[in-house]
């Protein structure tokens, strides 16, 4: 007897003997899904508002700088200054994205579903951090690319365009340094807090609280103390590294004097410490 057309047959449970991907592919799958989360893609409209607001502001800044550069040739904002000037916006961006990435998973209790699978807690932590760092570089590096486009139209000669391109490359690497420092601090804090709003406040707080200390230290009479003051706050820490790398002769601002290498060392140490604590945190979470 043939059955009538259009009837869906229950073919029963099918076993799966096909391909199973390895650790790297699983990591990439989690990383790309997390990168989408940073921008609220595949999520509700509400989740898209804040990240795209930041994108819009960065784009406007980039376009204005690009326009000024291409019309008048005046350099109002160097590539290195770009993330420095927009560091407040960067803090806002990580304060929105990091809780979305990790606090949400803690709150919903979904982590046991991850850690009962062949996914290492360290891989989970690193995929989330890598996604946030990539997101920051895409947004703020994108702004730097806009600045470059303006420059490419205003400078004369292929050689000068190549110089600009090299400057932009360095600028984007500097943005990546910002992304690593801000991202690792933000993800670490968010990984400790279940509620997204609380986590966002704690992240902003961690960047703000230390700022007045820098302010007080930088008006003390001792020059060494003034030059070391920037180490206390993540924003001034990374801008200190920038001052050392890009403007060694710059006397304006706090100035880092001869302590540039120390700033770089502390920065690297801070990233390493945050990443290590983050992995430790998730090893612990996987057992509970």
């Amino acid at each position, binding site marked *: 007897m043939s059955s009538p057309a259009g009837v869906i047959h229950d073919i029963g*449970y099918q076993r*799966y003997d096909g391909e*199973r991907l390895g650790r790297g592919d*699983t990591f990439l799958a989690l990383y790309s899904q997390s990168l989408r989360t940073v921008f609220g893609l595949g999520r509700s409209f509400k989740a898209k508002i804040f990240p795209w607001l930041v994108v819009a502001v960065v784009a406007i800044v980039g376009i204005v700088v690009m326009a000024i550069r291409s019309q008048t040739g005046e350099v109002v904002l160097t590539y290195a200054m770009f993330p420095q000037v927009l560091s407040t916006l960067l803090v806002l961006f990580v304060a929105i994205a990091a809780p979305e990435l990790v606090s949400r998973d803690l709150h919903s209790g979904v982590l*046991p*579903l991850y850690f*009962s699978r062949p996914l290492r807690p360290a891989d989970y932590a690193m995929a989330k951090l890598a996604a946030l760092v990539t997101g920051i570089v895409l947004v703020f590096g994108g702004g730097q690319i806009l600045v470059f486009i303006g420059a490419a139209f205003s400078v004369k000669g292929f050689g000068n365009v190549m110089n600009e391109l090299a400057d932009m490359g360095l600028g984007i690497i500097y943005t990546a340094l910002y992304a690593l420092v801000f991202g690792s601090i933000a993800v670490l804090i968010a990984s400790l807090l279940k509620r997204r709003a609380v986590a966002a406040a704690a992240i902003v707080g961690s960047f703000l609280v230390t700022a007045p200390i820098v302010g007080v230290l930088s008006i003390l009479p001792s020059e060494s103390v003034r030059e070391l003051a920037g180490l206390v706050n993540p924003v001034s820490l990374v801008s200190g590294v920038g001052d050392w790398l890009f403007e060694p002769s710059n006397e304006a601002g706090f100035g880092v004097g001869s302590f540039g290498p120390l700033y770089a060392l502390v920065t690297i140490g801070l990233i390493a410490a945050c990443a290590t604590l983050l992995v430790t945190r998730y090893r612990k979470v996987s057992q509970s």
Partner: protein
Amino acid sequence: MTLGHTLRRVTLIATESLTKTYGGRVTALSDLTVSVEPGIIGLVGANGAGKSTLIKILLGLLPPTSGRVQVLGLDPTVDPMGVRARVGYMPEHDSLPPDLSAAELVTHLGRMSGLPKTTARERASEALRHVGLYEERYRQVGGYSTGMKQRVKLAQALVHDPDLLLLDEPTNGLDPAGRDAMLTLVQRIGTEFGISVVVCSHLLGEVERICDHLIAIDGGKLLRSDNVSAMTTSTDVLVVEVSEGDGELEARLLEMRLPVTRDGHALLIPLEDDLTYDRILTAVADLDLPLHRLDQRRHRVAELFADREAAHV
């Protein structure tokens, strides 16, 4: 190779003097030695008996303090990733992000188990269909009922086609009809799908009817581990109660060569075949006794555990 394969097929889970203490003071598992074959296994014990700790050790998430453990022929303390690739886990508590659809979530978790993208999507719809979620799977999980959420949790444990499912209190929060549906589903997975299942529950009566094997633990100690068929030493029992004349009825039934035993006012008769019913009814009618109750009882397993627990206390 052949030997290893056979062993793997014969032993699903084996533990040997498995002990877990937290901080050297709280003992979650104490000297637990069990060995079970593939099938549906009930893991029964009161809350805090050590069921969840045992599951975490089986998954390789917690290291045991001492003792040995094997799951599907693998040692989770040595090869946790190997074990987790072949095991599906359904946790007890809420574990679903409310703002994702069931289809998205199960697909994503399938990829986390190493399924390629397209396969993950296909198997996610299949798994959701098998647990009874069709068009609803495109809606956000936040709007689901408890029963639907439990089904999604079960689907995500099935998506990567595991050889063993660990279900922690799958009937938690469900109404009686929902409990029955869930247990029937678990039974289908164990029989038709050919996937071994460990069902944790604090209610023995609930899991005994679907299990091949029962493990009872209390305070981290093994109370009993045995095949259900070995535990139900007698077949089902008929309980007869009459308002008066139970002595007469007992005598009559013995006359009819039915092995009657007494339980207070009730008479217990092993149910041998459908005729037993008729013979009892005939006896009651002949004696013109007011029949109060005649039903089937299947609490043998529970009674066996009750005896053990009483002895233990």
